[in-house]
């Protein structure tokens, strides 16, 4: 294995890794506010259109949503495992774990796409193909609007994460990471866990309202 060298602006690899970690945490702070704005809008309208939102949420596909939650949590576990192993070698296992996590991400996106298609068939896509019982139409339209924006943005994050994980898995297989230099794995892991965390919030906000009384 090559002796890892820090980039020119850093004195040591440790300093470089700390910078990468802090950079990702700062980026995630931005992301929190980004999703936070949308979730705020969601909360305002859920408060204003409580019945409509409950009626609309009952049309979401809770089986797929639950399955997807399990899939993302599992993938996060694989990434966390890879993050622990990369510091002690195990190049091939790390690469395998990351590829597995990326694969689960792809399955998540596939299921999400299937869900979108079903919603299109059921006339639940605002502005494109939307029909809802008249009493709840206005709030339901807002609900599905926010649903598509939130899950669409989240899906975009998953897709980016999949590409990043595959790229890092490829480099891990080539032995690029080891005890000294492994920050790409841990930093990408931070990002992936965040994407997972956002989904946990979305799951509760989107799939669960209106279910208990139904």
């Amino acid at each position, binding site marked *: 294995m090559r002796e890892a060298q820090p980039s020119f602006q850093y*004195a040591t690899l440790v300093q470089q890794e700390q910078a990468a970690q802090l950079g990702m945490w*700062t980026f995630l702070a*931005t992301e929190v506010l*980004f999703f936070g*704005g*949308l979730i*705020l*809008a969601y909360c305002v309208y859920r408060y204003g259109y409580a019945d409509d939102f409950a009626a609309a949420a009952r049309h979401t596909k809770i089986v797929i949503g639950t399955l997807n939650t399990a899939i993302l949590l599992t993938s996060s576990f694989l990434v966390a495992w890879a993050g622990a192993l990369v510091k002690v070698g195990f190049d091939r296992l790390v690469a395998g774990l990351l590829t597995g996590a990326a694969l689960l991400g792809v399955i998540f996106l596939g299921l999400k796409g299937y869900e979108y298609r079903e919603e299109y068939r059921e006339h639940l896509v605002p502005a494109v193909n939307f029909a809802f019982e008249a009493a709840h139409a206005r709030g339901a339209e*807002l609900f599905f609007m926010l649903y598509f924006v939130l899950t669409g943005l989240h899906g975009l994050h998953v897709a980016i994460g999949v590409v990043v994980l595959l790229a890092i898995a490829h480099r891990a297989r080539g032995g690029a990471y080891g005890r000294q230099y492994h920050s790409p794995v841990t930093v990408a892991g931070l990002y992936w866990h965040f994407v997972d965390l956002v989904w946990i919030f979305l799951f509760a906000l989107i799939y669960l309202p209106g279910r208990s009384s139904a």
Partner: protein
Amino acid sequence: MKADVETNYLTADYRLRSWFLTTDHKRVAVLFFATITLFFFVGGAAATMIRLELATPQADLVRSDIYNRLFTMHGVVMVWFFLIPSIPTTLGNFLVPLMIGARDLAFPRLNLTSWYLFLIGGSVTLYALFVGGVDTGWTFYAPFSTMYSNGHVVLAVLGVFIAGFSSILTGLNFIVTIHRLRAPGLTWYRLPIFIWSLYATSVILVLATPELAITLALVALERITGIGIFNPRLGGDPLLFQHMFWFYSHPAVYIMILPGMGVVSELVTCFSRKNLFGYKFVAWCSIAIAAIGFLVWGHHMFVSGQSPFAGIVFSFMSFVVAVPSAIKVFNWTATLHKGWVSYDAPMLYALAFIGLFTIGGLTGLFLACIAFDVFVTDTYFVIAHFHYIMVGGMVTAYFGGLHYWWPKITGRLYPEYWARAAAILIFFGFNMTFFPQFILGILGMPRRYHVYAPELQVWNVLSSAGASILALAYLLPLFYLGWSLFWGRRASSDPWHATGLEWQTSSPPPKHNFVATPIVERGPYVYTVDGEAVPQNA
């Protein structure tokens, strides 16, 4: 060692691609400088048209819909493509690594990405403004922007959205750099105040900008799909737009003023030959302004129909946020006391800043008062107030900083006589332009109209006359600074006899800033009783 100094960052490589693919923070700063200068004059041209039109009470230069597009163009370009990036992306980009003794920012490629995003966002917005314009005002208030406006709202919003990511990346880069790349011995309390203020600015950039991005995305979505997110006729909530917009846009005011305060802190110490009075207070006041600044956005909404209790809280918080600003003004003034004050051009700008910022800040307290704010809402009083902060404050500080660090950036000295003349012209031109607008506001002239009652003409003519002086004064540096690039005298490494690390390397600095990483031994503003500078690292 000699060879490294002989080729500096400007002469290291002359090919075009060495500029457009550079990751050197100093070159990225120069790229940003060229870009925002262009935007400054685009926004300035719109302002010139506005003041020309307002010279008479009738509409004789432009039609009302063109006038709407002019003030929108002025606002959008000046806020997002000049003021927000101004000091951080140019002086900040150039100086953060130099001041902390680093070889570059933590993420050099991200820094270049930030410039490209800015360029793309700026181009998209400019395109929107030139192919037909936008008539919403820079605030894009819904539902006007989403339903009724017949301008290119989606395009303009898209440009601002993209430029927002440029801000976020710059802020992120600064935060990480300041935390992780400080030279040995450079503790937080040895950092120059400019770094503290940029740190506070970066925190706002990172936490507030995404909120703007998502708000503008929703505006575009409502406009494209016709689904009522903000339009009350379609079931949306226009107050939600205002809350989300001002949650970004009020902290954005502090993005625009905090870096200026940082620059002024550097200038005041250097030209008073004294340590900054109450360093720790000034440092922590930057952080306090950034933090409290997040809790005052509702003062833009006193007449919006928000709850009166919320109004009272926002009013109170707006008074609170003035305290750290006032502390800074007192500390700068106290620094002058018994200093060896000299009046070089940067110091003239700094002194102008202190005076103009104080007027802007005090009138801000008027506006924090609900009763008075209701009286002058949407009048020229508000216009005058925020121009005192943004133009009298930020632009003045930007020019001061530009002159102060010009020898470091270019390796040349600017002509002092012309620079002082421009500084004095700016001060008088500015006051003549904007002070009458306070009076116009009190007399009840509303903003965003191009016709007005004839008895208000005298104040408007005064303001327009001042604006012509101001325009001339802003053009002057373009000529003499441009001249100095070729014919200015060569600058030594420390022409001002200042103390910071950036003055300990050659002018212009070598590609990687320092021949050897400096070891910092003391605070940033140590001067002997005779006013002799004691460098931070020796």
